[in-house]
Each structure stands twice: as C-alpha cells, then as structure tokens.
C-alpha cells in the first residue's frame, strides 16, 4: 500500500505551523492572532495524527492526544476571546499593537 509518505504530512504541518506563527506575530487584530495560534496547534495535531499512523510504533495514542489538544485549543480560544472582550470594553480596541501601556 503506497500511501502518502509521513514526511509529506510533516512538511504540511510545518508549513501550517509557520503560517500560523507568522500570523500570530504580525496580525494586528487580536482575534486573528488567537486564531493563528489555533492554526499552530492544528499543525501540531497533524503531526500527532500522522505519527499515530505512520510513526515508529503506530498507536491510537496520537489521536487521543490530538483530541485533548483540540479541546484545550477550544478552551484557550474561549478564554482568549473573553479576555479580549474585557479588554475591548475598557480600551475599545482589538489591535494588539496598541496594547502597550506597560513597557520597558
């Protein structure tokens, strides 16, 4: 059975990770930043699932791990958004680069 090689999935994950990272570090809108972080977590999930099937000793554990990850990511997104809400209520902005009253 010639499937897609492991490396292909890994490279895909890597690319998505990098994109997510770039997004998280450059986008001004905090929502996008949060969602970019989700993308990074997703990239990790791809790794986990790929290793789960094509790794050294295939096992279901990777998939279980990824389920945990997805849940955590969701929770994190929720908390992140909640924080953003309270911030927005006080500051009326969602731009991360305007959050700099504390520095140096």
């Amino acid at each position, binding site marked *: 059975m010639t499937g897609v090689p492991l490396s292909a999935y*890994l490279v895909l*994950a890597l690319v998505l*990770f990098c994109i*997510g*990272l770039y997004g*998280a*570090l450059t986008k001004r809108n*905090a929502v996008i*930043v*949060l969602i970019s*972080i989700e993308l*990074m*977590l997703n*990239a*990790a*999930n791809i*790794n*986990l699932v*790929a*290793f*789960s099937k094509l*790794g*050294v*000793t*295939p*096992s279901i*554990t*990777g998939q*279980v*791990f990824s389920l*945990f*990850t997805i849940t*955590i990511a969701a*929770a*994190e997104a929720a*908390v*992140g958004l*909640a*924080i*953003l809400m*309270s*911030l927005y*209520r*006080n*500051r009326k902005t969602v731009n*991360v680069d305007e*959050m*700099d*009253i*504390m*520095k*140096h």
Partner: protein
Amino acid sequence: MDWNTMLSYNWGAMMPEFIILGTAMILSILDLFWPKHFNRRKLAWLALTGIILACLSLISLLSFESVSILSDTFRLDSFAKAFKLLLLFGAGLIILLAESYEPQEGLHEHRGEFYYLFLTALLGAMIMSSSGDLITLFVGLELLSLSSYILVGIRKHDLKSNEASMKYVINGGISTAITLFGMSYLYGVTGSVNLAEMSRTMAALTDGQLQYIMGLAFFMVFVGLSFKIAAAPFHMWAPDVYEGAPTPVVAFLSVISKIAGFVIILRIFLSLFQTASGDVFGALDFLEKNNIYIASLAGLTIIIGNVIALRQQNLKRLFAYSSIAHAGYLLVAVATLGGGYFLMDTVWYYLLAYVLMNIGVFAVIQLLSSQSGSDDISILAGLGKKSPYLAIAFTVFILSLAGIPGTTGFIGKLNIFLGTFITEPGHFVLAGIMIAGTIVSYVYYFGLLVQVFFRPFHSDKVIKIRSGLYTVLIICVIGTIIFGVAPNLAFDFIHDQFGDFTDFISSK
C-alpha cells in the same frame, strides 16, 4: 477496563489532588449560591483549609513507595511528593496574601472566582508534578495556564490587568503551540507518550535523523516551557504581566507557576533526555552533549534579568526581572545537572528559598502598593523609620534574594555553584556569568534597601497589616533565616524522605 480494575488502583495516592479539586468545587458552588453581600474574603480560609488538608494528606503519603496509577498518568514518586509539598506550601502562603489583598479598585466582585481559579491552577501544577505521561503533563500545564490567564485578568476594570492578561494569553498560546509541536515530534520519535517507555526508546535510538528530530523537539519543548519559568528567550512577557496583574497573582506567577515550570522541565528532561543517546554510537547522553544550549540560555537569562532590572522604577517590574534572573540561576543547576550529585536537592532547596523570599517580598509590596495605590519603588521610602519591623523583614528577603550569607538564598546559590564546579571541565563561564549577575543584582536590590533606610518618607499613613499578611511575613522571615542558618533542616528532610530521587523514572 472494569470498575474493579479501576478500584484496584491506589487512589489514596491522589488524595491531595482530590482535596484541592473538592475544595475548588465547594468554593465555586458556595460562590455561586451565597448572597452577593456576603464577604467572599472568608472563602480564603476555606481555600486555605483545603490546601492545608491536602498538605497533610501529602505528608501522610510521604512514607509510601512510589505509586503509579493508570500506566503512569499519575505517579506519586519522590519527585512528585517533594515538589507538591513546595507547591502546596507556596500556595498556602499566597492564599493568605490574597486574603489580605485590598487593592484600591478591582478585585472585590470576583474574589470568589479568584480563590477557586487559584485552586484549579494549583491543581494543574500538582498534576504536572506527578505525572509520567506526556498527555497528562500537557493537560496539567494547560489547566495551570488557563487558570492563570484568567487570574491575571481578573481585575477586569483595570486597563493594565486587561492588557497583561491579553499579553499573557497570546504569549502563552504561542508557547503552548511550540511546546506541543515539539511534543508531537517526541511522540513521533518514540511512538509513545509514556515517559518511561519513551525514555527506553530514546536511549536506544541510534538513527541520526531521529536523533536530530529528537533534538528539534528538545529545543521546541524547552523554549515553549521556558515561557512558564520566564527564562530567555521566552521571558519578555513577564515584566508586563507582573506589572498588570494583581499582586497575589504576581506572587503566584512568580512562585507557583515557576515551580511548576521547573517541575515539568525536570520531569521531561530528566526522564527523556538525560538518558537519551546523544550520538549515533550511544556513547554520549543527549543532555551531556547539548547542555551548552541550556547553559547559554541560562546565562542569557541571568544577564537579561539582572541588567534590565537595573533600570526599573516599578517594583513589580523590577521583581519580574529579578524572577527572570532567578530562573536563570536555577537553569544553571539544570544545565549542569547539578554536577551529577546536586541536582534535585539544589533545585528543591532553591525553590523553597525562592518561595519564602519572593512571597515575602510580594507580601511587602502588596501591603505598600495597596496603601499608596502605586507600584513605584518610592513607596518603599522611609519604611525603615515608619515601620522598622516591616523594613527588617523586607531587608531579610532582599538579602536572601541577593544571596547574602545567613539566608536561604545564599545556601541555594552555593548549592548551584557546587554543581557547576564539581565536574571537569567545570562550567566556569556559566558560574562567572551567574556571579557577575549576582553582583549586578546587588545594585538594584540594595537600591531598594536604600529607599527603605536612607530616604525620607512622604506619607505618614500608618501601615495596617492584616493578620493573614502578618502570618505570611512571619513565616517567610523565619523560614528564610532558619533555612539559611540551618539548611540541614531542609537537606536532611529531603534526603531522608526522598533519598536521591532514585524512583524518578523507573516504572513498575
């Protein structure tokens, strides 16, 4: 898996966690149902009771052989016991701090939430310290992180608090992602998430490529986790978050969260990388071969923490940098692995010292800043005249942080140095950086003392100390001095109870 197998596990070993969890639940329910006018401050005592009970149950567990539940997802080994003790001790002190926390604006309407979020965070940290399973560790880490994100932002009408938590969550998310990415590779290389199994696989690894990936994973996990301990390169959030967060939360972040960070780093690294083969011949250990990286990061952390602290005018920021520096000192121990003889007791002792002195300092800061409504270092001015005992307590903490003999901080540093020098070749450069950093730290630490003793005070408001804070101060002062003068109280305890932490990895 049937119910009987379930019952066959020694759940008693998880008693402390259950107690904390239960307390958190009770608190949340009480908070929900108690009338609004009810002073939520009283919940603190309940939380404290929970922590004390957990502590007591943990102490009763000390004599147990190491217990493993559900293929290591929970392990009560000596490592876990030792560090959970620290965590619970620190948490108890911080709860007392929080009880006395009276900011000029903010917390009152969410005091209840504060306590149980605090307990869940603590639970996360405890899970992190007693699991031998990557998934559980990760979940514990996230439980801690999520709880602390919320804690940081809990003064939600405070601009700084909002901003701090936003920064914290963004940086935390990125760090989580990086950590997870690294963990996914670790899983890939070993095909398991059980640390013991992984360790065996990794030790037997001879393929260069897999070793390389292992290395990549190592760095990702390390950098990701360095977020938790606020070490370079992932330290920059700390000053801003510390500045914005409520003081007890800062104490929490700088103490509990940091301990938890070290716990997980040690867990993972000692389980996995210390025995992992460092080259294709399996002749070298991975950490042995690559400790230069951790060492450089440790050095960098020390330098950054101390040098930038020099310029700080805000107390919380200053202590943020100071805590960065201390993370650096501890990383030195990690990087050198305590020279092979001094790792665990060094880290444990130093963290104990750090708990005492840092919580003490934050107690003083909390007291002063909530009275003056400012965090500027000038609020310390004239403390020596106004309240000499408070000033002396503060001095003790500062001296300990600076590593002056007679305090725990000194013995802690001494232990770290022993580890750096005992091997051949010794880590002289690292030790040099550490010592230079210590000297630079004198400048800002003693700058604070200059404020305390040499400067006149501007307001002669009488300083009122709540009993909780009072207790914290007394415990911290006494601890700092006692463990500094007679460190063997701690050393003997840890050696008698935990020996050399030999049951660290071996699974049943």
